């Protein structure tokens, strides 16, 4: 589903490359952790997938289509195939939980009935049916992230990317989020999760892709976070 063919990304005013010679394949339905120190290129990896940036070298293939060749007006359509979750939740503070989740459906022009149905389903999946009418400011971090995940998943996209989703959460809550993402993965959704959370990575034993200075130094099927020290 995703293929990075010798991808290099150099930002305009920076000397060194954010990503350098990244070459890997992620199949549909896989779950992959993306680990590495800050600045190693994890966020850049995500941005390339979302077509927020274009690769300066090599090709990023999504469902056998070169993302760089995507015409600008087709980018929104591409992004609808990807659910994205971030460390800072990125919810609209003035909208309720329901409205926040529904937003993802409204922008694609879904009919009102479908919106109601899908939102209810998503709320149930993340376990937030009770707080549907609250606003983000009235929720805990963990709850906010669940809303974000519900919004990311409500359209049942083929790919879900999570950029340090547990970064602002305590260990117990982080585990809950992790289990949620695992459940989503089991429905057939490809999940790529960038993280610093060593405990979770070690616990789940999924594919681990390790980035250091923009290069892939490790790609293990059932890996752990890293070597000691």
């Amino acid at each position, binding site marked *: 589903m995703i293929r990075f063919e010798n991808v290099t990304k150099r930002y305009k005013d920076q000397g060194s490359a954010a990503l350098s010679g990244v070459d890997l394949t992620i199949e549909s339905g896989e779950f992959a952790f993306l680990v590495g120190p800050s600045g190693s290129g994890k966020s850049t990896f995500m941005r390339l997938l979302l077509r927020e940036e274009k690769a300066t070298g090599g090709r990023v293939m999504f469902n056998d289509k070169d993302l760089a060749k995507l015409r600008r007006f087709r980018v929104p359509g591409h992004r609808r195939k990807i659910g994205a979750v971030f460390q800072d939740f990125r919810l*609209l503070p003035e909208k309720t939980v329901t409205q926040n989740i529904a937003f993802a459906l409204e922008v694609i022009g879904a009919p009102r009935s479908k919106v109601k149905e899908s939102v209810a389903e998503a709320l149930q999946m993340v376990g937030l049916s009770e707080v549907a009418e609250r606003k983000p400011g009235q929720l805990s971090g963990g709850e906010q992230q669940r809303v974000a995940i519900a919004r990311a998943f409500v359209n049942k996209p083929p790919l879900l990317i999570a950029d340090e989703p547990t970064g602002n959460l305590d260990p117990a809550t982080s585990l809950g989020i992790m289990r949620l993402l695992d459940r989503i993965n089991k429905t057939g959704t490809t999940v790529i999760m960038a993280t610093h959370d060593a405990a979770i990575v070690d616990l789940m034993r999924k594919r681990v892709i390790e980035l250091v200075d923009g290069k892939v130094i490790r790609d293990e099927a059932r890996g752990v976070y890293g070597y000691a020290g």
Partner: protein
Amino acid sequence: MTIAVILTVAVSLTLFGTGLLVRGQVEAMKDYWYDRVEVSVFLCGQASDPKICPAGAITAAQRTATEAKLKALTPTVEGVFYESQKEAFDRFKQQFKDSPILANVTPASMPESFRVKLGNPEDFAVVATALQSLPGVEQVQDQRKLLEKFFKLLNGLQLIALGIAAAMLLVTVLLVVNTMRVAAFSRRRETGIMKLVGASNLYIQLPFVLEAALAAALGGLLAVGAIAAEKALLVDKVLEPSFRFTAFVGWPEVYKVMIIIFVTGVVLASGAALLTVRRYLRV
């Protein structure tokens, strides 16, 4: 922010509309006056310059010959009217009825003339050459030339008025651009999330453009009101009664101007907004 846009649009559209009205007014005056001007063929009288009229006053035979010559010049000449010295004197008396000069003027001091209405005002030269050399003709005067200087001045004023209006429209466009930039920046969180979930560019940009269009429409309404006030209060109540000798721009023309400025305002603002948000809200 939007209040600033509304007011700026209102002011610049009012200036633009006023400039257009001034143009309409000048056209109306031109139409009125060019319709009325004629060629005047002044005939020799007792008071004429001996160098031009060596034989003194015009004779009856010469007068008939001159009139025949004029009438023969159709279709260049549309109409010929004779004004005797007495008639000239009566007209003079009426125009200057309160003036002290009247005491010193007698019918004998007034010139006789043929007033010639031309089919095409450009053909003055034809009449001039035909008549200038006739005995008894003192002077062939193209009254248009007098008016031309006056209208040249008016044209100049007109250009200045439109120049100011154009500058104001530019100011408005710049204000809209800046307002949109600020709006796009202050709403970057919302638009960022919209981009993330895959909203199309139009979905993201349209609200901004509509905001600008609405502000321009409100400003446009204010401008339309101002133009109507100009016509109803300034032209109809002040200018027209004071200057009875010319035509003034009418309501149909004013309505046309109103539509033009309103549409210009909305289109200009929407266009400026669209170009700006497209630039600052790139996917």
